[in-house]
């Protein structure tokens, strides 16, 4: 290349330098961390964006900043919120989306669609259903010194690991799109100065149809996924309370088809350590056996009741249908017809070892 060519080539990047998109400086944007949706009426809904702002100064604590607006689409709401905010709203870091229970009962298809369509939204995003208005949860003071948004995210995240089934936007979408399963989301409520995970919201397609209690959510987790580090309390026939700790459990769903009739069976294997048995001799093999059978009974009874309820509501959050689909002789029409009446057995196999540091 001669000198002229070199000059031409070096000129192009200089000319293009003016075309770069405007840089985003962290201090100059409004980073939204939580988003809430509330029901207004059949057409409109209210959106609330929670973000925190750290004022200049060394000792300053983050200040909670909340914006809300009502509109028919998420985009419209975002525009209105933008009109209120002093800095451009950025949604790339949203970590938690709260749906108000009433809105969830009317369906959350629009909101879900706008979440999954936006390329800047991640898939680890947490979705929850709240008993109160989402706005009241985001626009509140908690006893934590952390920013409100971070506190809300931490509470839900911690529970997803230990007490309720792990679900994020991706998991929700997998269940939502599946023809043979229905989604579920954690249920939260505000209690004084705390936020509390209080169970699960069960969906049929995009509509909330049922909620289950915190205790049942735990049984749900046992049936739904493999996990470790759980905890389970049970009352023995003699009235003594025992807790199983360091619980690890592994579920297995089996779907059979005989003469065109489907049956399903859950086989749950639970291992744990017996702890905290006042007045109980945990070194005695008989006591351990009593604990084991009590836990088994408890799991089976509660699980059967829960599964029955799902069948009555014709919803399948435990994805039994997905398991049935994996059979080569699967017929979706037959399955849909039979699901609410079919026989679903629950088997639990609990294995407890004594523990604690005193005998």
């Amino acid at each position, binding site marked *: 290349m001669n000198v002229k060519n070199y000059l031409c*080539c070096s000129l*192009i990047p200089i000319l*293009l330098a003016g*075309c*770069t*998109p*405007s840089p985003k400086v962290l201090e100059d944007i409004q980073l939204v961390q939580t988003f809430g949706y509330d029901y207004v009426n059949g057409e409109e809904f209210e959106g609330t964006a929670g973000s925190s702002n750290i004022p200049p100064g060394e000792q300053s604590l983050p200040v909670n900043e909340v914006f809300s607006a009502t509109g028919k689409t998420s985009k419209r709401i975002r525009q209105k919120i933008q009109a209120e905010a002093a800095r451009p709203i950025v949604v*790339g*870091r949203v970590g938690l989306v709260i749906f108000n229970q009433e809105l969830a009962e009317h369906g959350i298809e629009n909101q879900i669609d706008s979440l999954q369509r936006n*390329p*800047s939204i*991640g*898939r*680890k995003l947490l979705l929850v259903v709240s008993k109160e208005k989402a706005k009241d949860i985001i626009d509140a003071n908690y006893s934590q010194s952390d920013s409100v948004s971070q506190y809300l995210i931490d509470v839900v995240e911690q529970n997803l690991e230990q007490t309720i089934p792990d679900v994020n936007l*991706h*998991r929700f*979408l*997998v*269940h*939502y*799109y*599946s*023809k043979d399963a229905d989604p579920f989301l954690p249920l939260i409520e505000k209690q004084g100065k705390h936020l509390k995970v209080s169970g699960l919201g069960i969906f049929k397609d995009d509509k909330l149809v049922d909620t289950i209690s915190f205790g049942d959510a735990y049984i749900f987790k046992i049936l739904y996924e493999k996990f470790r580090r759980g905890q389970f309390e049970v009352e023995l026939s003699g009235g003594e309370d025992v807790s199983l700790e360091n619980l690890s459990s592994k579920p297995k769903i089996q779907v059979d088809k005989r003469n065109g009739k489907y049956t399903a069976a859950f086989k749950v294997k639970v291992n744990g350590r017996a702890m905290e048995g006042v007045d109980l001799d945990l070194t005695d093999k008989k006591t351990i056996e009593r604990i084991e059978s009590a836990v088994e009974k408890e799991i089976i009874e509660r699980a059967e009741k829960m599964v029955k309820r799902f069948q009555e509501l014709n919803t399948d959050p435990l994805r039994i249908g*997905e*398991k049935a689909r*994996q*059979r*080569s002789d*699967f017929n979706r029409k037959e399955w849909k017809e039979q699901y609410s009446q079919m026989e679903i057995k629950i088997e639990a196999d609990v294995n407890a070892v004594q523990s604690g540091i005193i005998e």
Partner: protein
Amino acid sequence: MFPLPKEDKKVSPYFVFYLIHAMQIGVGILGFERIIVQSAGYSAWIAILTSGASIIGLVWVSYRILNKGNNDIVAIHAEIMGKWIGGFFSFIFLLYFFAFALVVLRSYVEVLQVWVFPEVSEWIFILIIIFLAYSYVTGGFRVVTGVSYLGVLYGLPLLLVKFYPLQYADYGNLLPILNASPAELFKASKEMTLNFLGFETLFMFYPFIKDGPKSEKWAYFGVLFSIFIYLLTAFVTFVYFNQEQLKGTIWATLTLWKIVDLIIVERFEYIGISVWFFAILPNICIGLWCASRGMNRLFPVSQRSALRIFCLLLFFISILLTDRQQIDLLQKAVSQIGLYTIYFYLPCLLVLQYIIMKVKKA
């Protein structure tokens, strides 16, 4: 009439591995899963194997033609069909190579615009990429080979992030294993073949390989490696997405990256898309190189001025394609042409060459 390139312009036979593999892995891999799943459901991975096997067969056919002709497609065409008819077919071939570069460039810019820079207009990216491709292609075939070598190398670490979606895997998704009818599988195989297109550029760069016949095994390795990459990608995508969910996901491989959770990077897609540029660049470079080299062989123009013309054309046509539908249409058109070329034209050419050589000898 068609002189062979000088010895110092040639590359070693094993570079064919990189050239062919780089050409086959392009923009297609960012979203091929959806297309094959729409045809054959989650049994579509079988289609990857069947179409891959057919490509191996076609590479064999290509080498038979090339080894016998011992020159590029322009010379072989002229030898078999004469100056005018042969020249006409060669011209179509090089238009195809040009269109290939166009499709890759435009599809990648679309991804860039939708995912990373919605506020930047597309001509800026197009200009930058063409400028870059031009500067590489003017360096000659050895530089283009270097680009494809680096493209393959830079793309490999992206395989590591497949680990993240596997944490959310439902392996049961793959069951039942054979759930598609042969017709559905055939349709999916046909669609999958489009992702293996690009090895035809071999017909242009064959004379640039030292000891051409020796490179055959490297070509097979290149195709096998592509099959492996596609299979792995499809496997991870299938266990991660629900089937119905996947059918609505345009760029499944990109959406997959959304679950990647690195400490300092919230959105891995941005890095992934940027790194993927190095996998795209060889496609555009090789396409442009083949097209300009063909022009130089057919018409009395230098390769450099032919390249300049093609770059200008590439720029203006890319700008004219503005929406998804047009890009889709172009993709379909090019892949249909490619499909018929490799499955019908290449075997016919082999037979024709055999007959004419026999006749000429006699």
